[in-house]
């Protein structure tokens, strides 16, 4: 041992190593304990199956032709295969809009045909702005509007969860818009529900202000969210932005899903949300589907993002 202030004896080195080992060991044990507590809190998981499992797919843009994805039909087929190979049958599949790129009858026919290949008892959809480019959504409703109300909105109950599918793409200015009729529908639809009913809301355009400069928000969403404030668990799933994003505001959690067609830039990255061209391998990583599960007694839904690989 010298008098130099920064040298360390073997004894000191061993002592510090022991403290470091203790820190690592305790952290691992702590992590295990916390994970275990989280796991046992999930009572139904012990029984092996969540109460509700479904898949979200979005923005297939059937009919798109461009460098960003030269074969969107093939990508959508891969997405369907991915859903059919999850290892279980999802209770339903939701397509959160922009099924087609230009809303032509052929494109609606093609996407509808393709979706018959989904291995699930129910397929639900909401329209994107690309599905109503020239007719305020009439062709969309002819193809997918059976059983819906108003301009295509609807709700249903499944496994104790109340699901609301909204249309916020028909009266577009810059932002999405729900409109008075649809707001009335939601107010009446949820009026009799107990506050502990889990709520899931589907829409194409985000119901939160993700990036209003690019129209990534809904101008009267605050109204509908105020109706939902009394519920303990509200989950909003949307498409439109072609990328994964999440946000919580009080009792509401918002999740933007990715696309099966082509990525868009991150908010504010460039002058406008134009399709981004990526190398093939990176494109496959950017495209995907989402698994969602809900277990009774839990407030939050569990999400798993899956690439098309």
């Amino acid at each position, binding site marked *: 041992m010298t008098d130099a202030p920064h040298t360390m004896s073997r004894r000191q080195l061993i002592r510090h190593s022991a*403290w470091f080992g203790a820190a690592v*060991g305790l952290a691992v044990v702590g992590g295990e304990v*916390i994970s275990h507590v989280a796991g046992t*809190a999930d009572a139904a998981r012990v029984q092996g199956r969540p109460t509700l499992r479904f898949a979200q797919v979005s923005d297939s843009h059937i009919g798109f032709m461009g460098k960003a994805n030269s074969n969107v039909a093939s990508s959508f087929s891969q997405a369907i295969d991915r859903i059919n190979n999850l290892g279980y049958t999802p209770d339903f599949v939701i397509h959160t809009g922009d099924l087609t790129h230009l809303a032509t009858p052929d494109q609606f026919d093609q996407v509808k045909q393709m979706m018959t290949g989904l291995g699930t008892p129910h397929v639900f959809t909401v329209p994107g702005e690309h599905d109503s480019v020239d007719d305020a959504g009439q062709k969309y409703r002819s193809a997918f509007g059976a059983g819906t109300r108003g301009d295509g909105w609807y709700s249903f109950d499944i496994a104790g969860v109340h699901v609301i599918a909204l249309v916020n793409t028909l009266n577009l200015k810059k932002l999405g818009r729900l409109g008075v009729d649809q707001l009335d529908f939601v107010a009446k639809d949820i009026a009799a529900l107990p506050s502990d009913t889990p709520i899931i809301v589907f829409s194409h355009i985000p119901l939160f202000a993700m990036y209003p400069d690019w129209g990534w928000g809904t101008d009267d969403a605050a109204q509908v969210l105020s109706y939902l404030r009394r519920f303990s668990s509200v989950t909003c799933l949307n498409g439109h932005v072609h990328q994964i994003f*999440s946000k*919580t505001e009080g009792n509401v959690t918002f999740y933007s899903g990715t696309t099966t067609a082509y990525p868009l830039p991150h908010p504010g990255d460039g002058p406008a949300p134009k399709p981004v061209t990526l190398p093939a391998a990176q494109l496959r990583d950017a495209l995907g589907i989402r698994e969602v599960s809900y277990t009774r007694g839990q407030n*939050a839904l569990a999400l798993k993002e899956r690439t098309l690989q």
Partner: protein
Amino acid sequence: MTLAGVLSRTGIAAAVAVSGVSHAYLYIHGYRHIPTIGTAFLVQASVSLALAALILVGGPAWLRWAAAMLAGGSLVAFGLSRTVGLFGFSERGWQPSPHAALSAVAELLTVGLCAVFLVEGRRARG
């Protein structure tokens, strides 16, 4: 060790533990399902609790620096999640209440107490 030293050690350990418990609570109550953020919360909670325990029983000074860096990092992550987003995740204001505020105060306290500890240590060494 002096009384001031024991108090400082206990204070840092308590502040680190509060931040760790808050993150563990949020992890258990839903955050574990958020991609990347869930894992980050689990790591933050388990490392914080380990550091708190070892600081409390009189571990070496570098444990406090580790705690200060963890607390500082958590504060930066908190700030990012309220502004530009973090791994595609963002939150607003002090939600979820009261855990967001509790964690932020505990982390500020950790950084502050560690800074005091540094200044006092330098003064003691002359």
